């Protein structure tokens, strides 16, 4: 990818050390629509203003890692991408298509909301993996993975089962296909959850602290799957506290604090050369 924002950043980085890396970095390549584009996104829960004017662009095949202290709005930002949260202001576009609303405002300036069915169709193209796995406990691993292809995409069961077994194999769990989630370890459950999301053949994947609920020795098996996905060219947005993973896999690291994107850039820029005191303090606490 010649348009890889990493290269531009890297060229700028040495002589640009003192300049703060601001959200709408003019160095970021503007040409070619980003697969994910958040523009001026705000989110308020009543009086609580949890996201403030967030801009984020993630190109196809890119891996963006969101870091920041808890309560900084990382998960909310992630959940705005697949409309589990509705932005209070701003726009979310996936492959150029506005999420949740019509493309143009109505003559009176309001925005026409999409129907629940249309929103469900938009969500179906985005895979999501949760901190607490949230597998369906009354279904086996195989049934968990087959559920959406059969009942959302209308695939024939035999085909869906074959695909699901292949996916379970890909995450190293074909021999656990007939187990219920309660019979699997946390790491295995999370890998099933990844397979379940992949079964919808999503254009991008969102990971909300996928290893935070795991015992330390189980973290690696999940990160391995994430890494393989990234190498396979999947567009990913990952909220995580695993700095080693961020450094190794991320194309773009985004640091959030108090609902704002404070710094973003390559892992070298953000993790190795933090500009703000907030980021330096945060990194000192997690590294």
């Amino acid at each position, binding site marked *: 990818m010649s348009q890889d924002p990493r290269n531009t950043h890297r060229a700028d980085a040495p002589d640009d050390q003192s300049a703060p890396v601001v959200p709408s970095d003019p160095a970021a390549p503007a040409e070619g629509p980003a697969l994910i584009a958040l523009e001026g996104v705000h989110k308020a829960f009543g009086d609580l203003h949890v996201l403030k004017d967030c801009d984020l662009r993630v190109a196809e095949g890119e891996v963006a890692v969101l870091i920041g202290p808890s309560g900084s709005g990382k998960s909310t930002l992630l959940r705005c991408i697949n409309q589990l949260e509705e932005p209070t202001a701003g726009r979310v576009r996936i492959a150029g298509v506005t999420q949740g609303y019509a493309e143009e405002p109505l003559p009176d300036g309001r925005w026409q909301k999409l129907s629940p069915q249309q929103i469900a169709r938009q969500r*179906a193209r985005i895979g*999501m993996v949760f901190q607490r796995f949230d597998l369906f*406990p*009354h279904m086996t691993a195989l049934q968990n993975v087959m559920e959406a292809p059969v*009942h*959302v995409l209308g695939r024939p069961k035999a085909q869906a089962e074959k695909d699901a077994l292949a996916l379970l194999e890909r995450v190293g769990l074909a021999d656990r*296909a007939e187990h219920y989630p309660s019979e699997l370890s946390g790491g295995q459950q999370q890998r099933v959850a990844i397979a379940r999301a992949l079964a919808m053949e999503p254009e991008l994947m969102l990971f909300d602290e996928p290893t935070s609920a795991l015992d330390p020795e189980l973290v690696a098996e999940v990160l391995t799957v994430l890494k393989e996905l990234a190498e396979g060219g999947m567009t990913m947005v990952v909220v995580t506290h695993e700095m*080693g993973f961020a450094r190794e896999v991320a194309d773009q690291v985004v640091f959030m604090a108090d609902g704002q994107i404070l710094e973003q850039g390559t892992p070298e820029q953000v993790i190795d050369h933090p500009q703000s005191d907030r980021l330096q303090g945060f990194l000192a606490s997690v590294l």
Partner: protein
Amino acid sequence: MSTTQPSPTPADGPVGPVPAAGSPQRASGAPQPSGRDADPIPGRIRAKRSPRPGTWISAVIVVLLVLALANFLVTNPVFDWGTVATYILDVKVVQGVGWTLLITVLSMVLGTVIALTAAIMRRSENPVLRGVSWAYIFVFRGTPVYTQLVFWGLFTVIVPKIALGIPFGPEWFSFSTRDYFPAFWAAVVGLGLNEGAYLAEIIRSGLNSVDKGQSEASKALGMGNGQILRRIIIPQAMRVIVPPLGNETIGMLKTTSLVLAVPFTLDLTFATNAIANKLYAPIPLLVVAAIWYLAITSVLMVGQYYLERYFGRGFDDRPGGAGPAKRGRRARQRAVNSASTTPKNSLPEVEL
């Protein structure tokens, strides 16, 4: 025996009950350990139960009470066991059992369908649906079931004709309720509507018991609200709903004795009462009815056990507790394994 095995515990702190001085005699009476398979756990604790005199005292008291009860039942002539034996399989009685069962099942099915609808309406974002559901529960839970049954019995008098048309305007189609609403259906509808109001609250709490993450995960997969309810929420809520649902079913079995308010006159209680009045022998026929109600309750409890097992699948680690889905598991597992799709340790290590 610990006399033949070196104890791994420190000599000054015996953990398990160490054999007392007289124990060699007991040990010699027990089979010799050398001839059996060696216990893989050295120094296994041989526990002697702590004395529980309460168990014995209560057992003696209960046995005495049971004997007294048996004496009372056998010697008291009012029970007239001969009459009980004569009428327990009487045609009218057995037919009464059939009608009672039929009313119980139909009114529970009707009640469950109404209750599920009402519970889902209560959760709706539509305020009209929420209001209708609230009003239904308010009225039908707040009035006696006997009153409701009398009302449904009088329905054909209160509403002799049902017509389709515009209120105060023209009428396109009408029929007489008398022809389509016999006492049997009045009983079923009356009991079902009353039961639905109670079940609605049970089902609502069951639906609320399912983790919020479940509907979020389903939404993220692109499932619609109806699908999420049907495929994800309700199957999990059933685990919580079934035990009280069983309770309500058993309650309904006995509430059916109120259908004489309609009046419906073929159920078990009415049938045994009619015979009792004819014979001037109320007690033996009450016993006949009680035996039948107990028998039906036992059958219902078995059904509840299987329902609980089915909806507990995936939640229960007890062997066989995962329900029928597990039965074909071994065969399929062998098939999956023999395909050897998963090499051992297929995951490369990631450098962190």
